[in-house]
C-alpha cells in the first residue's frame, strides 16, 4: 500500500508539474510585453531586431519553443536568463537558500506565536485575556502582510532604528561562506556574529510574513483545542487530578495539532508565495525579489524557471505535510 500510495503521489506530482509548465509557458507569452522590444537599440533595423529574436530562440513557433524548453528541463537545464545572461538553474539555486531560510524562520515564528496565543486563549477561555487575544488575532489576520512590512520598517527601522531594513547581511561583513545557506553554514563554521547579523536582517521580513499566518494557526488551533477539551479522555484526565496546564499541553495539544498542522502546511506554500512582496519591501535577495525583476524585464526563461521552482516547492511541502499528518494521526496512516 505505501508503495502504491507513493507511486500515486509521484504520478500526481509529475502531472501537476507538467500542467504548471504548459500553463506558465503559454501565459508568459500571452500577456503583453515582448522582451526583445525592450532591448531594441535606438537605431536598430528590422534585421537587427530579428537577429536579436533569433539569438534568444524567440523566432521559433511557440510550440517548438516549448519543446526545446521541455527538453532542456528534462536534462536539468532551465535555459539562460535574458536579463542576467546566466544559467537559470544556477541563478535560482543561488537565491533559493535565502528564501528558504527566511520562510522557515517565518514559519517557526508563526507556529510559536500561533500556538502560544491558542493555548493562552484556551486556558483563559471566557476571560478578558481571550477577548484581547481574539481582537489582536483579528487585526493580525485582517491587515495584509505588506502593510505589516511597511509598519515594521517605519516603527523598528526608522522611528526606533534598531533593526536593519534591507538586505540579508551587513555589507561590511565578509563571512567568506561557500554556500548561500548563511545560517546553516555560519553555524557550522562557528561564525556566531555573522549568523546573528543574518538573523537580525531576517527578523522584520519574517515577522511580516509570520503575522497573518500566526493568526490563522492560532485561530484553527484554538478551535481544535476547544473541541478536544470536551472529549471524555480530557474529562477523565481532570478526574485523575491532572493540572490544567498539563492537560492542555500533554493531552489536548497533540490531538488538536492535526488540523492545525495540515493548515500550516498549506499556508506555508502561500507564505513562500508571499515572499515576493516582502522580499521587495526589505530588498531581501531571494527568489521572490528575483521574480519581480524577471516579470518587469519579461525574462521569459527566468519566469518559467521560477514558477516551476515554486511548483516543485509546493508539491514537496504538500507531500511532507501529508506524511506528517499521517504520522500524527494513525487513522490516516491506515486509511
Amino acid at each position, binding site marked *: 500500500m505505501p508503495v502504491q500510495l507513493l507511486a500515486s503521489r509521484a504520478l500526481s506530482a509529475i502531472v501537476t508539474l507538467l500542467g504548471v509548465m504548459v500553463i506558465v509557458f503559454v501565459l508568459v507569452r500571452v500577456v*503583453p*510585453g*515582448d*522582451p526583445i*522590444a*525592450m*532591448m*531594441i*537599440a*535606438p*537605431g*536598430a*533595423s*528590422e534585421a*537587427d*531586431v530579428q*537577429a*536579436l529574436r533569433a*539569438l534568444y530562440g524567440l523566432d521559433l513557433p511557440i510550440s517548438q519553443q516549448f519543446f526545446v524548453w521541455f527538453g532542456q528541463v528534462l536534462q536539468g537545464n532551465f535555459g539562460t536568463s*535574458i*536579463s*542576467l*545572461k*546566466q544559467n537559470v538553474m544556477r*541563478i535560482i539555486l*543561488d*537565491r533559493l537558500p535565502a528564501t528558504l531560510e527566511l520562510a522557515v524562520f517565518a514559519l517557526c515564528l508563526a507556529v510559536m506565536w500561533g500556538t502560544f496565543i491558542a493555548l493562552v486563549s484556551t486556558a483563559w477561555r471566557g476571560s478578558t485575556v481571550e477577548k484581547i487575544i481574539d481582537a489582536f488575532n483579528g487585526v493580525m489576520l485582517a491587515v495584509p502582510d505588506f502593510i505589516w512590512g511597511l509598519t515594521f*520598517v*517605519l516603527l*523598528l*527601522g*526608522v522611528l*526606533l*532604528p*534598531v*533593526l*536593519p*531594513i*534591507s*538586505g*540579508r*547581511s*551587513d*555589507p*561590511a561583513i*565578509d563571512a567568506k561562506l561557500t554556500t548561500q545557506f548563511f545560517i546553516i553554514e555560519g553555524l557550522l563554521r562557528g561564525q556566531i556574529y555573522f549568523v*546573528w*547579523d543574518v538573523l*537580525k536582517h531576517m527578523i522584520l521580513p519574517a515577522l511580516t510574513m509570520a503575522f497573518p499566518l500566526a493568526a490563522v494557526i492560532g485561530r484553527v488551533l484554538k478551535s481544535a483545542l476547544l473541541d478536544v477539551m470536551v472529549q471524555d479522555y480530557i474529562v477523565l484526565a481532570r478526574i485523575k487530578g491532572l493540572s490544567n496546564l498539563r492537560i492542555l499541553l500533554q493531552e489536548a495539544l497533540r490531538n488538536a495539532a492535526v488540523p492545525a498542522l495540515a493548515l500550516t502546511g498549506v499556508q506555508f506554500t502561500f507564505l513562500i508565495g508571499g515572499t515576493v512582496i516582502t522580499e*521587495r*519591501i526589505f*530588498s*531581501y*535577495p531571494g527568489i521572490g*525579489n528575483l521574480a*519581480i*525583476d524577471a516579470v*518587469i*524585464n*519579461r525574462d521569459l526563461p527566468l519566469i518559467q524557471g521560477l514558477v516551476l521552482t515554486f511548483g516543485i516547492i509546493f508539491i514537496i511541502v504538500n507531500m511532507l505535510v501529508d506524511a506528517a499528518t499521517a504520522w500524527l494521526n494513525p487513522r490516516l496512516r491506515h486509511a
Partner: protein
Amino acid sequence: MTTLSRRQIMKLGAAGLLLGNGFNITAALAEGDTVTIAYNVNLPSWDPTTGLSSVNPTIQSIYRSVFDQFIGQKPSLEFQPGLLTEWGWSDDKKQVHMTVRDGVKWHDGSAFSAEDVVWSLERAGKQDGGNPISFIWGKIGNYKVDGNKITADVLSFEPTLFKWMAFLTGYVMPKAYFEKTGAEGFEAKPIGTGPYMVDQFERNAFVRLKANPDYWGGKPAFNTVIYKFVPDATSRVAEIESGSSDVTVDVPFEEFDRLKAKDDLAGVSTPVSDIGMIFLNNIDAMNDKNVRMAAAMSIDKQAIVDKLLKGYATPIDTLEAPQYAAFDASIKVPYDTEKAKELLKMSGFSTDNPVKFKIQTTRGLKPKDFEMVQAIVGMWRKVGIEAEIEVYEIAKHYELRAGDTLAPAAFYNWGNAIGDPTTSTGFAMFGPSPHSVWNTDDLDGMIGPLWGEADEAKRIAGWKAVDKHIADNAYVIPLIQYQQPILYKKSIKVTPNIAGSPEPSQMSPA
C-alpha cells in the same frame, strides 16, 4: 552634562532590549572612508556592453565606477578624455584616429593597452555579439595599432560615433582577462580600469567596491563604496531616514522636501537627461492637425510642474532639453486654451461634441506619470477633447511601440545622456526607427539627410529646423525635463550628474 531626548532614550532602550549588549545596529556606515548608497535599481550583470542592462541608463553610474569609457563625460554632459586622450576624424571623414592613455592598469595589475581598445570595439561591433548598440560600433573597422595610436576605416559615416564612446556600452573591456575567464568567469570576478574595484557582490542585495589605489585619475575620496539595491522607493526613504544609508536617489518629491529639511540630511535636485513626453501616433484623430495642435496648446505644463512635481521639473517645447546640443529656446508651443478651442471648432469639435481618443500611460514608473496624464485629460476636457486613459506596463509600451501600434497618444519618458539630437528627436520621430510611431514623409524627408551629415554646424541647424517643424505641426507633445532628487548626509559632498545618477567618484567627505 550630556542630556538625552525622549526619542534617544527610547532608541537606546529598544536597542538594548532587542539586541542585547555587544551588538551594534547597522547604521551610520559613513565613517570617514565608507559611503553607502541606497540605489534604486539592481545590477543584473557585470558586462556593461551586452544585454538588457547595458542599455539601462540608471545602472551606468555603477559601471562607470568599475570600468572606464573610451571617452569621459563630466557631470555637466561635457566630454573629456577617458581612456582615449585624443580622438577625431580625418579631413575626408574616411578614417578615425584615437590615442590611448599611457600608464593605465587593469584591476588585476596587468597593463592596459591599445589592443584592449581595439578588441572592445571589434567585440562591440559584432552583430551577433549581444551588444544592443552594435549598429554604431560596426560603422568603423580595419583597425591598425601603432604603439598607443589607433586608426580605423570609416565603413559608414556616423557623426555621433565619438559621443557614443561616452554613452551606453562605450566601455573598454580587458581583452586578455576576458578571453581567459570567459563571460561567466568575468561575471564572477569582473575587473576594469575604473576608480573602484569590485570587492564583494551579493546579487540583488549589495555590491561593495574598494578604491583603486592606482587609478589614473587619482585615488577616489572614499576607500569603500557600498551600493545597496533598494528598488522600492518607500524603503529607500526609510534607508536614508534611519541612517542606514548615506546617499539615496529617486525618492518621491514630497518625501524629498520633508527629509532635506532634517538637521542631518541635505538634498539636491537637478535636471537630468530624461524628459516626459506624449507620443502621437499618426492614426485616427491624430491625422487632424487641428486636433494635435489643440492637444498640445491646451496643456498647462507649468501648472503640472508646480502642482504635481513640486517645481522639480522644467517645461519643454521640443524633445531637446536645454543642455542638449540642438536646444533652441526660440521654439515655443504656447499654452492657449482659446486658440485650442478655435482649432477644434475648425474641425467640428467642441466641449459638447468632443474629439475622442485613447491615451496610454504607465503608473508609477516615473514620478507622477499617471497623475500627470490625469491632469492633462482634465485640461483637454475643458477645450473639447475627451481622452480615455489606459494604464499599461512599460513592457507593453515597448512591444506596442516596436509594432507601431501605440494608441493615438501615449505618455513616455526618453533619456539622452549624450545630448545629441539623433538620440532624442532622431530616434523618437524618424519613421523607419523602431522607436518612432510617427510616420510621415515630410518629417522623414527632413530627418533622413541629417543622419550622415558631416558638417556639424549644418547638422545641428538641420535638427533645430526639424524640431521647429515638429512643434509647428504638433507631431509629438514634449512635456517636461525631469529632475533627479538626491538625498545625502551632510557629512558627504555629492556632485549631481546630468547624465544620470551621481557617481561615487564624484562624492567626498564634506
